[in-house]
């Protein structure tokens, strides 16, 4: 493998890793607060990609206008899902609320198949993102370079919100102890909605960047990234935002490195995430940056 090819793959790994990171933040925040794997998160990502297609292709809007609309629409969808499918089950057993999450995800996938058909739609060409830049023999698209930068900026925004603002303080309190936080007069529903707002907005940004890299939009496009990003969140330590980003990067890098160093195992690319998950859960269930929690009787 030449140095150029290695650099190219490294850049790809970082860029796919940062896409995973964007989605993983949404999983980790929701899990931190509701102790729920939000299976629908990957489908919000998928829907955002479709919204972008409609904004730019069907209505012919400029990319920045459609991006703004897509983010708003994804946030609305995320909050709607929370209100419709999770809110009424807040005191139900864990299994019920998880089945509800699976149900929502299944519904969104079927709805997308029904409304938009299973035929792949081309993601619109965002000129400034798909342009290629060359460094010597290494040629990269702008999206590949911009994605990690966007991810890091958004990570700092999320860290600022959770650590420096009042609602962020409430979020941390709720994730520490749901009941006590409620007794302290924190408006639980507002905190949970805010979590879904942030998570869905990040998923929408992720979908726009993802589409510029892999321009084929299908109803099941969110399933695999969704599962993988949850795994990235577990790897980083569930509930920990920085951990989620770290986990996303590690997962993306290991996938790309496997494909480039052991091309004969390319077919197993989707299995790596699950193998990482099993290893993490056995060796260090709290993840890389997670806090230790003990079971109370």
């Amino acid at each position, binding site marked *: 493998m030449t140095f150029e090819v290695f650099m190219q793959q490294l850049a790809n790994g970082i860029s796919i890793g940062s896409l995973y990171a964007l989605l993983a933040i949404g999983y980790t925040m929701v899990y931190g607060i509701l*102790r*729920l*794997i939000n299976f629908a998160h990957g489908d919000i990502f998928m829907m955002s990609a479709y919204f972008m297609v409609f904004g730019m292709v069907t209505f012919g809007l400029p990319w920045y206008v459609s991006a703004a609309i897509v983010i708003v629409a994804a946030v609305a969808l995320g909050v709607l899902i929370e209100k419709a*499918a999770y809110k*009424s*089950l807040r005191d*139900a*057993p*864990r*299994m*019920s609320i*998880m*089945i*509800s999450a*699976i*149900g*929502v995800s*299944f*519904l969104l*996938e*079927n*709805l997308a*198949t*029904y409304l938009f*058909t*299973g035929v792949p739609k081309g993601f619109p060409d965002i000129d400034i993102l798909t342009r290629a830049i060359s460094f010597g023999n290494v040629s990269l698209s702008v999206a590949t370079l911009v994605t990690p930068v966007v991810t890091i900026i958004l990570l700092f925004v999320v860290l600022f919100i959770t650590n420096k603002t009042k609602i962020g303080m409430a979020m941390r309190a709720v994730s520490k102890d749901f009941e006590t936080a409620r007794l302290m007069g924190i408006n639980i529903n507002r905190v949970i909605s805010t979590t879904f707002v942030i998570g869905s907005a990040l998923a929408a940004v992720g979908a726009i960047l993802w589409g510029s890299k892999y321009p084929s939009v299908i109803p099941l496009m969110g399933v695999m990234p969704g*599962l993988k990003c*949850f*795994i990235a969140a*577990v790897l980083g330590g569930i509930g920990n935002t920085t951990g989620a980003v770290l986990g996303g990067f590690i997962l993306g890098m290991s996938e790309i490195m496997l494909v480039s160093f052991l091309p004969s195992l390319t*077919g*197993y690319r*989707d*299995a790596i*995430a*699950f*193998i990482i*998950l*099993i290893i993490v*859960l*056995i060796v260090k*269930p709290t993840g890389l940056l997670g806090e230790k929690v003990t*079971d109370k*009787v």
Partner: protein
Amino acid sequence: MMKIEKKENNLLKNAVLILIFAAIIVLLDLDIIGDNYVRRVLNLAAIYAIVSVSMNLVNGFTGLFSLGQAGFMAIGAYTVAVFTVPVEARKAIFYIVPQSPLVANIELPFFVALILGGLLAALVAILIGMPVLRLKSDYLAIATLGFSEIIRIVFTNMKTITNGALGIKSIPQMPTMWVFFGAMIISVILIVLLINSSYGRAFKAIREDDIAAEAMGINLFKHKVLSFAIGAFFAGIGGGLLASLLGTVDPKQFYFTMTYNFLLIIVLGGMGSISGTVIASFVVTVGLEVLRFFDDSLVLFGYEVPIFRAGFRMVIFSILLMILVLFFRNGLMGQKELSWKMVGDFFNGKKSPKNNRKGGAA
């Protein structure tokens, strides 16, 4: 005296009911009533009942949220497919990559392959269960889901044994419905016997409170692995029957969304109710077929109703699942079993005493 009389009366009712069902299957089987399509749907429902009841054993009775059913079914289905296709027919199937000499000349009778498939699924479940069953509810769900995907990915890539993404065709099909219904009846009876044994009581204790169960001297790990492996065994059997029913297997069939069908069935039937699960299997499978008209265009008074087109059926299906989860969390039966008293109360308009317990434990 009254009580004994009543019991005999119920026994008679049960016998009559069983005879009616047996007669219906015999008539269907002899091609006196129904057609191939009806037989196929009912056979599929019987297979779904086997897998759902075994999933309910794990999820509803032991309280382990496992989503690996599709993967275990794939193991069973591929075992039947690899070993029952006649040796001379294999060259035509494995035309791109020849079949590995390890299995190329082994041909087994259907029932041997079926049991072998179940045992292999159970073996894999034990290997997976060792590390994974230490996890708590939702981690367990995602880990089992992951394993079901890994199994599928491995099957897609083991081209010399499974023929990869092309799948295996011309699997010998069973001539009689009794293969499927017999397997269902035997499986359900075995699982009911298991649930009523001391193992079954241990499973339920683990579901209600695993820490308390452990304090009472139940070996948590052993019982969880046991329940998981038995669940996988029957899922493997179900997969093998499915391979025989369809006559073809390919990895795409065992995508993990398949497990959602069984999840819907056990939620509808009631987590922790065997009779509910069996009824729900038939309701869901037959229902999905009946709902097929949603996928065809509908013309009313010369006007084509625009919402009826391909994919609408699955939207309805998933909306029904959501309604069930949100408003009827106990499903048809909750944790109760079907009894004549329940049927009687239902027809007399008496409300059965409210079941305060909520669904399966997480």
